[in-house]
């Protein structure tokens, strides 16, 4: 299995993100945040942005986008942050709580038993 990003030169990643190496610590994106396109790709758009908009016509998790784009998760989050700020995607964040919601745990169990 090829490992995305491993053999890419850092220069490519540098160019993709305009020199930003890390998502800011307060990046709103979790690995499993579901991203949904709010518009179609346009001509002249950065190709990674266009690819994200095509991939997210239906909800798609951040980690799936990273794998499909063959980019590290942190770089993917930077690209998504740009699209989110421009209103081109929306984000459905996981419902996080210090203690998991018992109702959600029940839903998980029902879903697993139905597998």
């Amino acid at each position, binding site marked *: 299995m090829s490992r995305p990003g491993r053999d890419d030169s850092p220069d490519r990643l540098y160019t993709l993100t305009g020199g930003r190496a890390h998502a800011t610590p307060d990046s709103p994106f979790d690995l499993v945040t579901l991203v949904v396109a709010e518009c179609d790709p346009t001509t002249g758009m950065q190709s990674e942005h266009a690819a994200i908009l095509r991939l997210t016509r239906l*909800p798609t998790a951040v980690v799936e986008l990273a794998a499909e784009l063959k980019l590290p998760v942190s770089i993917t989050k930077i690209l998504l942050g740009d699209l989110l700020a421009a209103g081109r995607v929306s984000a459905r964040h996981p419902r996080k709580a210090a203690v998991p919601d018992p109702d959600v745990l029940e839903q998980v169990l029902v879903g697993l038993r139905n597998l």
Partner: protein
Amino acid sequence: MDSATSEAAVEAAARTPLGATADNGLKIVVVGGFGVGKTTLVRSVSEIRPLNTEETMTQAGEHIDDISEVRGKTATTVAFDFGRITLDARNVLYLFGAPGQERFWFLWDRLFSGTLGAVVLVDTRRIDDSWYAIDRLEHHGTPFIVACNDFGGPTYAPSRIRDALDLDPQVPLVDCDARSRASGKQVLITLVEHVRNTYAPQASLREQELTR
């Protein structure tokens, strides 16, 4: 058909997209040493072919923006694979196979905060490989179970494995065959039931406070 549309059609055909109403991603992590069967377990229950990605960080922390630091020796890269299970119209479970080695734990909070729980996958022939993962999960306060993958070798009494791992009596210990969908499913159910039991007293306490 213009090229953008046909490209999208090809991408959609190659992938199994989620339903439009999906809005809550959940995480379970399978931790274990090299060759213990993490990817096999993920594959046996996943609705997609397992995908692979990676995360990189500098051990110095999050605040270094200079890309040259990423080139340097301080960069930690961890590759992990994952699969997915659509639970219902809204909930989607992502199952991550992650290496248990030391550098991986630098990335735990960044990648796996909010994880429902973890499965420590054990090869009983190399039980020592699991100590570190169990220690770290206890440290992070992540609920976990231990699943012994059946490699067809001699089986050990659960009490011997518990002793060897110095396992807390409350932590479930199960046998599994990572190649089997039914077995993998049972491992996940055991974990989520354990998570529910772990939090049940806290949840009922919270309800009491709310109704007071």
